[in-house]
């Protein structure tokens, strides 16, 4: 349900001129909702930025999500994290 909430809030932001980049661990749900830009990462539910107390990994995932902003539209854009 958290992935649906993210997608719906992202949609409202995009409508108002705020570009969004989301993280997802549930590709299927994010695809169904049509979240404007989302980076799929291969981690369990509850671990969207990978691992606790691993700042380096967390930063790399954030960079991957932000990199989606460079892709041309239209959305939805569902990207895979290169690792």
């Amino acid at each position, binding site marked *: 349900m958290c992935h649906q909430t993210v997608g719906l809030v992202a949609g409202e932001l995009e409508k108002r001129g705020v570009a969004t980049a989301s993280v997802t661990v549930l590709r299927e*749900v994010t695809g169904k909702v049509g979240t404007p830009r989302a980076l799929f990462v291969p981690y369990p539910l509850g671990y*969207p930025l990978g691992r606790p107390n691993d700042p380096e990994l967390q930063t790399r995932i954030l960079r991957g999500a932000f990199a989606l902003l460079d892709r041309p539209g239209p959305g939805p854009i569902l990207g895979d994290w290169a690792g």
Partner: protein
Amino acid sequence: MAAVFIAKLYQPTPRRALFHTPTVATLSDLSFKNRIFMAAYRYRRLDPVPFTVPRRPLSSARVALVSTGAVHLPEQVPFDELFKGGDFSFREIPGDVDVSRLRVAHKSDAFDQAGFLEDRNLGFPLDRLREMAARGEIGSLSGRHLSFMGSITAPGRLISETAPAAAELLAGDGVDVAILVPL
């Protein structure tokens, strides 16, 4: 179709040998009860998908964080975990917050919360964004960030009230880019 539905329900719940072993999340991570619910659930779909081209490069953009980890300040009213259909409210988290002070109201039994309780940056990565801003990868951070509770199964008032209000607030703050993290 019915066969696929039934097959989804009967996937065994995987057991992880190590607590923090990263594995791909699938619907089979969920409990049987949650799996039945999610297999039958009709997700709301953005149609058409709203899409904004960023106004400026990230290195000069103002960035806000939106998390569904149900974090709140100790002095804020916690999210209501018993609200039928899910608490659709949100909390404003000030930009200068000490992330380790944030409380977590989430009580979803759908996922393992241990990592998030150990390190708030796993779902509310404000310290990581601060580091990126300090390095110049991000232009600046918004003066406030937003927290929702993700487990909203009846999103009617999220769609009609709180998601638009949250978006108005960040747009009014001059936010160029929002990063959203599900929990």
